[in-house]
């Protein structure tokens, strides 16, 4: 389809079919021509949406009231199709609904191009798209859900009434949401446990002989699994055709920028390398370390040992604040040999992994310090471990004691505990920052232990005002860039200039405007 005719919204049969339902499996790539500026806007908007999905997933319980409200708002702001029941009233002729669906479709495929390149990018993209899909599917009314399943040929094996009767007790005691009535009224699907891992992981389903028995109300799990599998395969295929896309010099820089945007700053750039001496660490740990690192530091000093998870989390953090490899080796060795490990054993068993952290061994990846999200979500601590997020992985009672020892005021402690209760671990940590640094409002949004350290150093070094001033021009620049890209509707004319602007915008957006 030509660019000019697109404006007339002449709808081909293919597209009616494709956009017939608010939600789709993205099985067919878009075939129309689109302008470069539309390409950019779509991509940036979807990236903003996915970024919101990610941030909300950390701050709120997925599917909770707040999560849904905030996400719905973002859908409206960015004009993606968010409330499918509205199109029942307006039928299919609501232009905007069509436009939204088209945007949803095309923007998804653009980001596929940007996010198929590495394992890490693929994982991030799949995770956010899956969360997004879950939200949208759950938002559908039962009729729409069935229609969606039908449309996409999703059929799953159900169990017989007789089997339901024999399994009744087990089915009821397998999930809070299942009662005797549910069992009677709903279909139960029997699928291999590999297809419903989320339910298996959380023990929310009956499992027998390698099969799970899923009530219809939980069918989202199987659908999501299908979605995830398809998307994962599609990304692998997309990666193969990438060289062709990369030969287009208009797209390549944009795609690269889009894919770099997701991580935010990774704090691996060691610009302050060597600026910290080993003697300073003890005092820094009390003043400028986030609680998780302070806890690890203390455990290390006390037991002269940390288990693997702790060494990784703390070791990479130290690397991020500027310890050199030599310093790191010296630091860990001097502590470990005071415990059960002798110098010889240290050199054999532990030095390797420290050099590994600095990218000097194995596949020579220069590992980046863990973000809050990684600390909170992956590898929870078990017996003997001191790593993890103290706000997430401590008993509230112990956390309270610890905060008391660190001289946080009783009212501060109760504020922190309140945030912890609401599962806002990063906000709790930020509150801890504010209280220990004696400031009203931290004015940044915490998502990385190394960010905590840098911000703390700024406050303690009196550099806070400088930071604020530096912020303002950046923001106005962002605004002009945004204006620039919306104003420049003529696609071919100043494409390259536009590109430069859009990439700038992206940079500042992701540096600045994290939730």
């Amino acid at each position, binding site marked *: 389809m030509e660019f000019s005719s697109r404006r007339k919204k002449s709808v081909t049969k293919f597209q009616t079919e494709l956009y017939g339902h608010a939600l789709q499996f993205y099985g067919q790539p878009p075939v129309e021509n689109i302008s470069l500026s539309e390409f950019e806007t779509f991509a940036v908007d979807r990236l903003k949406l996915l970024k919101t999905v990610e941030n909300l997933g950390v701050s709120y319980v997925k599917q909770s009231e707040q999560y849904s409200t905030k996400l719905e708002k973002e859908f409206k702001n960015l004009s993606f199709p968010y409330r499918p029941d509205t199109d029942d009233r307006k039928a299919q002729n609501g232009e905007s609904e069509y436009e939204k669906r088209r945007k949803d479709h095309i923007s998804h495929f653009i980001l596929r191009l940007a996010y198929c390149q590495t394992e890490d990018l693929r994982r991030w993209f799949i995770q956010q798209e899956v969360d997004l899909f879950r939200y949208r599917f759950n938002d559908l009314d039962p009729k729409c859900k069935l229609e969606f399943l039908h449309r996409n040929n999703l059929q799953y094996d159900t169990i017989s009434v007789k089997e339901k009767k024999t399994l009744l007790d*087990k089915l*009821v*005691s*397998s*999930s*809070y949401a299942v009662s005797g009535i549910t069992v009677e009224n709903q279909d139960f699907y029997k699928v291999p*446990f*590999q297809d419903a*891992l*989320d339910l*298996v*992981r*959380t*023990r929310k389903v*009956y*499992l*027998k*002989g*390698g*099969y799970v028995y899923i009530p219809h109300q939980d069918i989202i799990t199987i659908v999501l699994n299908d979605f995830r599998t398809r998307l994962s395969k599609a990304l692998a295929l997309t990666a193969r055709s990438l060289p062709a896309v990369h030969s287009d010099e208009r797209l390549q820089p944009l795609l690269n920028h889009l894919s770099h945007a997701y991580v935010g700053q990774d704090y691996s750039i060691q610009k302050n390398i060597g600026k910290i001496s080993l003697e300073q660490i003890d005092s820094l740990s009390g003043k400028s370390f986030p609680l998780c690192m302070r*806890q690890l530091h203390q*455990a290390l000093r006390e037991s002269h040992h940390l288990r693997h998870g702790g060494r990784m989390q703390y070791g990479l953090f130290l690397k991020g604040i500027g310890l050199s490899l030599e310093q790191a080796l010296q630091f860990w060795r001097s502590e470990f040999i005071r415990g059960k490990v002798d110098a010889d*054993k240290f050199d*054999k*068993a532990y030095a390797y992994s420290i050099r590994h952290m600095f990218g000097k061994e194995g*596949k020579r990846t220069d590992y980046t310090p863990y973000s809050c999200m990684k600390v909170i979500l992956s*590898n*929870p*601590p*078990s*017996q*003997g*471990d*001191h*790593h*993890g997020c*103290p706000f997430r*992985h*401590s*008993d509230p*009672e*112990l*956390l309270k004691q610890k905060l008391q020892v660190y001289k946080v005021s009783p009212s501060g402690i109760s504020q922190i505990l309140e945030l912890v209760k609401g599962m806002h671990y990063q906000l709790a940590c930020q509150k801890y920052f504010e209280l220990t640094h004696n400031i009203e409002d931290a004015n940044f949004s915490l998502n990385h232990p190394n960010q905590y350290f840098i911000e703390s150093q700024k406050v303690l070094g009196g550099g806070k005002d400088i930071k604020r001033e530096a912020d303002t021009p950046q923001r106005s620049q962002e605004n002009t860039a945004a204006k620039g890209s919306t104003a420049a509707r003529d696609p071919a004319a100043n494409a390259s200039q536009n590109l430069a602007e859009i990439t700038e915008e992206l940079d500042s957006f992701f540096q600045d405007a994290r939730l």
Partner: protein
Amino acid sequence: MLALEYESACLPDLLPLYYRRLFPFSQYYRWLNYGGLQKNYFKNREFSFTLKDDIYVRYQSFTTQNELEKEMQKMNPYKIDIGAIYSHRPNQHNTVKSGTFQALEKELVFDIDMTDYDDVRSCCSAADICTKCWTLMTIAIRILDRALRDDFGFQHLLWVYSGRRGVHCWVCDEAARKLSVAARSAVAEYLSLVKGGEETVKKVVLTDPIHPFIKESLVVVDQYFSQYALKDQDILGPKESVDKVLALVPEDVRKTLQQDFQNEKKPEARWKLLVDQASRKQGTAKKGQYFEKEIMLQYCYPRLDVNVSKGVNHLLKSPFSVHPKTGRISVPIDLKELDRFDPFAVPTISIICEELDRPVAEEDIKPEDVKDNEQDAAERRKIRDYKRTSLAKYVRYFDQFLDGMAQSWKGELLKKSDLQKEF
């Protein structure tokens, strides 16, 4: 049996003998070859050796049983680890483009280590074990074996004593070997009930309704709890232990029980008081109050090292490897004999090498040996060799396990040969 003391200094002398005459290579190969159903399955398997002075050699791989034998007899590894089946031969991993060398399959494995129970056992700590706390391993095996079979439908589970302070499980079903990382972690999390590190006191929290899997696990714990926890570990005896248990019950109940315990010293009776309190709570409170069950699980439920199970490329100590610290052989555990399994009765390398040096009984020498060619005779001698040692019963059990797996290959092999005949 001679009470032969094992010393790690002897290892360099004993290992050559062990690998030359005792290590069950043919069974070992039969296992890892999995009936030869998949091309390159053995060839692309990673082995890694720990040599003298903790020198660690990764990415070893072998094309045939013979090559494996030769190499092990040459290197005499202190410890053998088994890794994944890769996309290429592991010993050539440097020659393929980075990123294309990938771990594809591996048995689903579990590692349970006694050190993870340090906060709930009073008899020993760290690497030490005794017959008292070994019950924890028995419970762990019972619970996990049931769940892996009944819930997940796996059949070929090889349980192995690690040689020192824990046990490993190798789930060898084809479906298990093909599981993705996500699936492995989901299985491991399904099986994990005890959660939290040094900063968590209450590590088990149950919510309504209690899942069938947890109910089944409680049935197992129930069989051992009174003997193990109340008698052997005496968790309701000394004040210190009692405080630890009471830290896990709701505050109001704690006060009542503290008073009740003043007049009641017998652990069994104290436990009964606690259980009574729990059932009273369950009668009144709307929400589930399962603190007695939570205590049972916190003290007895298996503690998995989830990271070992998650990764496809994670290495795990091989069966029949020697534990360098204790000298004990990593032997398969026959679940029919599980309650009688005694880690201290597992032979050390010193013992079996000693047994080998004893004079051969007359009836062991059979006339047909003479007729056979040399290689056959050598092979047969090796089989005879391990049969003369206390390793024999473990190898025999390993054989049974392999026979069980061979049953499942049979069908597959028939199908394959039928296909070939058509051409």
